């Protein structure tokens, strides 16, 4: 992204996030991390492993299992001049703190008539695919994107895992970062001087002419795989990583759809009332007369996530479905 240097280092999504936290803690003493098992355990997904030793218990704070209160405390600390990073172990537990996120974090600035902004960052793991069944596999980032007053980030790449946190901390308002848990082990090359990235824009990950596939988070890789397969069939797909679900970068995907005249949205959330529904609606509103076929969506099946692997995989968006859907839409080999 930055293109500062060609020198890269092999790393993982997990390490990139840890590096981002470490850098933030070093750069700004107001920054601290709090959440369940972030200290002595090293983080449920080992993201914060080693940070307690480096920064001490004052700044790497293990909390009781009190989601509502430690999120609320994050809000209070932000109001009080700190720059807290609150880690909610997974999005599933964030529901216990939904009141604080929606009724407090998202509303304070507005109901105080602009007096009190809440510079809080909340990180949480999201997504299914690990056979964790119905209570531990939600993808509710699109649901949170419904709420005005917060920002919703979904880093999919190593660059974003590394770079979004600092920008989020610099933001004067509450920012939620959703880390798809299937990405933590993802390996790749990252520039050694990778740093803060923009969080206002979607990114075209692959150029194409026949269709625009809009996605975010872990689905990005399924979409890129599909695009490779489609290329062999002579279909050129443009792939857009939304990166930020609120506020949406409308210009990015609308201009792409205006070019390709077809749009498919791949969203790991449930279909009804999803971010894919929102993007689809905005495409209708924005570039209706550019469409050469109906906008389509591939979302997670509307069931609580089943445990059995074959059922879970059937519920989630998959590369093959993306390929066949695109072929049908483009009507080549369809």
């Amino acid at each position, binding site marked *: 992204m930055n293109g500062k240097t060609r020198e890269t280092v092999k790393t993982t999504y997990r390490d990139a996030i840890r590096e981002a936290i470490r850098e933030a803690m070093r750069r700004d003493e107001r920054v601290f991390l709090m959440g369940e098992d972030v200290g002595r355990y090293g983080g449920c997904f080992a993201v914060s492993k080693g940070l307690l030793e480096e920064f001490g218990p004052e700044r790497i704070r293990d909390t009781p299992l009190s989601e509502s209160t430690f999120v609320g405390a994050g809000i209070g600390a932000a109001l009080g001049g700190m720059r807290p990073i609150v880690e909610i172990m997974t999005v599933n537990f964030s529901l216990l703190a939904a009141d604080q996120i929606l009724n407090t974090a998202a509303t304070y600035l507005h109901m105080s008539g602009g007096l009190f902004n809440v510079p809080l960052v909340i990180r949480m793991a999201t997504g299914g695919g690990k056979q964790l069944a119905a209570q531990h596999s939600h993808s509710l980032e699109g649901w949170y994107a419904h709420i005005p007053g917060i920002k919703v980030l979904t880093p999919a790449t190593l660059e974003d895992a590394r770079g979004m946190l600092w920008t989020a901390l610099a933001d004067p308002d509450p920012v939620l970062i959703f880390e798809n848990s299937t990405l933590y082990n993802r390996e790749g090359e990252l520039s050694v001087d990778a740093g803060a990235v923009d969080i206002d824009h979607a990114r075209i990950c692959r150029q194409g002419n026949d269709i625009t596939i809009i996605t975010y988070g872990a689905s990005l890789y399924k979409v890129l795989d599909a695009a490779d397969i489609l290329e062999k069939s002579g279909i050129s797909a443009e792939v857009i990583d939304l990166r930020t679900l609120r506020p949406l970068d409308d210009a990015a995907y609308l201009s792409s759809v205006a070019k390709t005249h077809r749009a498919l949205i791949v969203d790991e959330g449930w279909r009804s009332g999803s971010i894919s529904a929102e993007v689809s609606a905005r495409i209708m509103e924005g570039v209706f*007369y550019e469409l*050469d076929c109906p906008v389509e969506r591939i979302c997670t099946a509307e069931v609580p996530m089943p445990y059995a692997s074959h059922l879970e995989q059937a519920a989630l968006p998959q590369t093959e479905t993306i390929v066949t859907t695109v072929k049908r839409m483009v*009507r080549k080999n369809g």
Partner: protein
Amino acid sequence: MAEFCMPSLGADMKAATLIEWKVKPGDFIKRGDIIAVVEADKGIIEIEVFEEGVVDKIIVPEGKNVPVGTVLAIISSMKEPSETKEEKIVEGQVIEKKETALKLEPEKVLVQEKPVPPLPEVLEGKKHFKVSPLARKLAEELNIDVSTIQGSGADGIINRADVEKAAKERELKKKIPVTEKAKMPKEVEYQAGMRRAIAAAMSRSNRDIPHYYLETRIDMTRALQWLEAENQKRSIKERLLPAVLLLKAVARALKDVPGLNGYWIDERHQMKDEIHIGFAISLRQGGLVVPAIHNVDKKSIDELMAAMSDLIARTRAGRLRSSEMTDATVTVTSLGDLGVETVYGVIYPPQVALVGFGRISEMPWAENGMLGIRRILSATLAADHRATDGNRGAQFLGSMKRYLQEVSML
């Protein structure tokens, strides 16, 4: 409150361009008034209204191409001024009503134009075209009538590629006549449209109608003698054409044998009381129009001649009335002028018969054991075997023959 819709002027008309409004909001109109002029594949047609009232609102502006059934204007009856007002204020309601009306179009057409049967293809044509938004926009930009395009997308949706293909095809078509008629691309366009319309109707006829053909020869000597004597008395302007006699004879024969006058619709033979004869008129630039002469049986010879002259003039000027385009209950084709001996016609659906007349030529003719030179006409009947049988057809031809041989009976 009534909606004035783009009428269906033929089985194959799917859309037309509104060329001119003859009225403006606030104008009082009565049944039968010509209130708009539209341009369909077949040419420019004046559209009459079947309501009485006041033009409340013009919905489709001049220059716009719209599918059959589209509400062109709202007409409020004199009795319901309050409702009119409400409709004006609540825009959304009007739109909603319009949509409902579109769905109910077939009935709508029946109500509006009583004599027009609900033609099966008319129903098909009234379906909302599935056109992708991009294709629709592109078609508008390229001035392509989407109703003429076959969609290649799922469920026959017309997409961008289809429009682009149609545009290309049009370009190719344009290039051919450009050398001859460089300044008439628009007319070429009409002709192409008309050709398509004829093609559609005739294909359907050939596909659906089991034709049977009967032919007879009629001694026209006495009839023509009468005609010539009659014309002697008349000024050039008032002179009669042989075709008048033919039409009159057809009408009379249809009175005697009504089975051939009417339609085949929904697997049912519908005989008609009114005899409106579609009279095939070829156009100088090519193509064919078959406007109807209404109630031929009730017209005197003179009236018929006047109607025919008027019709031919207006047809060639491209100014036909909508009812004339749709009302024919039977068709007459006369190709004698072109030297044709015998006509084997193709029935214009949903009609059940077509009468063809060839050339009247002098022939050796035996009658009552005497050989003589007579002026003989070849008359044929192409009839729909689903509606009638050869026996009935023979009766018709026989009857017609009698009338032409005994002009006094006409």
